[in-house]
């Protein structure tokens, strides 16, 4: 069978496959590609412009095709991956030469826009997007030094994807780099479609409650991490830079903080730390104070709390858990819902449900305040994945507080601290000091 038929058979179920004949100089050439990825008329026009001022007579087909693109073997196995990638195949049947040409592509990626999940106040507001080449371009503009290195890997057997490993040669810890490279090479056959699979490939603990990666949509944050000696990973079709390893201080630091005056920078970071503490401790504290150790509170305060809880029919633990779960539901729903419906949920959840729950004596007034404060506080930390972590930790504290009161609260804090102390990300302890790379004098 000829190549043309074999290709037609291979792409039988693909309506966007095309194979057209065009004339380049004196040769009749087949043009093969996918309509959905290649802008055909524009590509033909561009090829013809390129060939029009070439010397006709002496040029052999192979030489001509070599000028236009990269010669490939005229075999099905060699051509198909190129077509899938969105390249254009030129095939000259008489001589049997074949070349893969970079066409004018159909525009299938969005242009660089402002970030969706992270907001910047005083910083550059272009965000990464799905196309990895664009991402690396943006990152190169942020990090214009010569030491930035970009390594590329093809990962996955059935659905190969490009994975990029970016680091600054003079900053990165060579042991860390070597271990990441070795892990990627070892797991090159594994499919990497999402972060869990990437974590598997890099040998992260899948059951960890802490984010093993730090993800950011903002090029300046990724560039900052590179300067700190971290490694940035990028996957094609994934609009986030994945930063390795992740640290506790990543919860509180942001590159944009440097755009404030120094005292404000420290104050804002302090605020985030306080926010994290409030988010984990306050619900547990409420349970401990209301149900086990009310004597710790000032008498007037204890009385007013008791008063507000007077008609609530169940223990503080159940009460807190009930409302917390409702809050989690609201949070999850508002992420899922389209932007036009989101505010409705907020209104229903906040005003109607909150007010009604108090009026119906299902929960106490104070609890509404406590939980609203908690939810707000847990979002003060940098990165949504970190706020999810905080949301989990508070349940440990609530359960222990319900059993042991204030002692349980403390025990919970110690357990969480011990847990943080035990976690590592790519062999680097999660609790290592901010000065991860001593070469950088501005680690912040």
């Amino acid at each position, binding site marked *: 069978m000829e190549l043309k038929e074999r290709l037609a058979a291979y792409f039988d179920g693909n309506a966007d496959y095309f194979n057209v004949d065009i004339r380049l100089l004196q040769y009749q050439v087949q043009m093969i590609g996918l309509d959905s990825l290649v802008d055909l008329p524009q590509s033909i026009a561009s090829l013809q412009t390129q060939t029009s001022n070439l010397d006709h007579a002496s040029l052999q087909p192979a030489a001509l095709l070599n000028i236009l693109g990269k010669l490939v073997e005229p075999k099905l196995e060699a051509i198909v991956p190129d077509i899938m990638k969105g390249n254009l195949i030129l095939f000259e049947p008489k001589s049997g030469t074949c070349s893969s040409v970079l066409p004018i592509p159909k525009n299938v990626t969005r242009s660089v826009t402002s970030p969706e999940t992270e907001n910047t106040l005083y910083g550059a507001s272009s965000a990464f997007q799905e196309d990895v080449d664009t991402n690396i371009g943006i990152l190169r503009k942020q990090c214009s030094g010569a030491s930035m290195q970009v390594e590329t890997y093809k990962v996955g057997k059935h659905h190969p994807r490009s994975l990029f490993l970016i680091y600054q040669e003079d900053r990165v810890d060579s042991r860390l780099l070597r271990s990441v490279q070795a892990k990627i090479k070892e797991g090159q056959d594994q499919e990497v479609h999402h972060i869990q699979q990437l974590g598997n490939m890099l040998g992260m603990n899948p059951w960890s409650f802490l984010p093993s990666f730090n993800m950011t949509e903002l090029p300046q944050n990724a560039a900052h991490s590179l300067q700190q000696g971290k490694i940035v990973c990028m996957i094609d079709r994934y609009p986030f830079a994945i930063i390795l390893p992740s640290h506790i201080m990543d919860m509180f630091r942001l590159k944009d903080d440097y755009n404030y005056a120094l005292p404000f920078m420290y104050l804002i970071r302090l605020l985030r730390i306080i926010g994290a503490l409030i988010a984990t401790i306050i619900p547990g504290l409420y349970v401990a104070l209301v149900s086990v150790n009310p004597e710790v509170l000032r008498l007037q305060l204890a009385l007013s709390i008791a008063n507000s809880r007077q008609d609530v029919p169940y223990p503080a633990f159940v009460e807190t858990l009930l409302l917390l779960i409702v809050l989690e539901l609201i949070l999850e729903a508002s992420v899922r819902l389209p932007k036009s419906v989101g505010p409705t949920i907020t209104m229903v959840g906040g005003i109607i449900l909150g007010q009604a729950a108090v009026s119906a004596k299902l929960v106490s007034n104070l609890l509404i305040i406590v939980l609203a404060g908690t939810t707000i506080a847990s979002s003060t930390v940098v990165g949504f994945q970190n706020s999810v972590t905080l949301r989990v930790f508070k349940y440990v504290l609530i359960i222990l507080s319900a059993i*042991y*009161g204030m*002692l349980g609260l*403390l025990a919970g804090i*110690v357990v969480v*601290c*011990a847990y*943080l*102390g035990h976690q590592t990300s790519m062999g680097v*302890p999660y609790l290592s000091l901010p000065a991860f790379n001593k070469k950088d004098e501005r680690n912040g």
Partner: protein
Amino acid sequence: MDKSGYQAAILYVVCHMGLIFFLYPSDLFTAMDMGHWIGIGISYALHAAALFLYLKGLAWTSRKNVIDMFRSAGALFAWLLLVPVFVYFGIAIIITLRAYSEMLTLVFLSSTPLWAIQLLLIGIAFLMAWQGMASMARTGVLLAILFTFPILFVLCLSFQNVDWYYLLPIIDHEQTFRFLIKPDFLVSLFVYAGGFFFLGLLPASIHISIKKMMLGCLLLLPMFLLSVYLPLLTFGQATAEMYEFPMLMTIDTVNITWLLFDRITIFFLLSLMAFALLYLGVTLWVLLTLTKRAVPVIPNIYLLIVLTAGLFAISMAIPNWDFLKKLQGWIIPLRMYVFLVVPLITFIIGWRHKHKTSRATEVT
């Protein structure tokens, strides 16, 4: 990963902070009537000297751990030396566990059964010991960051009710050193002894800097003094002597009108409990490491489970507070051994090792 020596120093300070403020003041009040600073000074000087000898001995053998050092002098010798250490730390955990649970019931968990509190405490210690020393060292730093502020806050405020006249007489005309051999005084050495033994077992990844350790030791001196003198200045010797936990009573007297909470004791107690939990974890880890070297075939986790269960059972079997007091009296010889003899032996072995290597280099 820590090369600066901060982790080890912080761990050392934190472990001692967890011990100082609870049992120490009442023991010292029973032991001495006047001139408490002399008693504190002598014990502190001994502590600093023992710490220095121990660290110096370790440093000379270029970061070998204590077990290996003792082994280099013969396997039987090592067994003889380390079995008392093992027994001492076992009893130290039991005493800490039991005494702290009693105290917690006393202060704010009157309806919770003792076993439940003990279970919680030893459970957390188990968790920490299981994770290993490197994790515990990092946890220690985090705990120090989180809880230092409340402790300092309470310590500053607890000067509210002091009467400086109680400081007098600074020295008694008939001051003798007879208190040194009183059992109560020897019991009070609990806080000085053994809190630093774990330094000899640290993995190589945690660096020890003698300078930073001695600075940490210096930091403890005001804490020792405060733990005794705050109750003394607030109540006077005659009253303070009667309390089981004089320091907690002192803080209970503090009244702050602008605070949300009625009793700031809770901050103090809980912050120190966090440190005490770390001490329990570290001591359990010391026991685990010693056992592991004695029976290397059994996996760590089983050893740890057996140890924890055993210690929990023994501490449950202690019938009452009086028995606990007696137990503390019985282990005085062991305590003095761990406090003074072990550092001295370490120093001597280290010194001999250094001598040998220097002679070897001279010959070559």
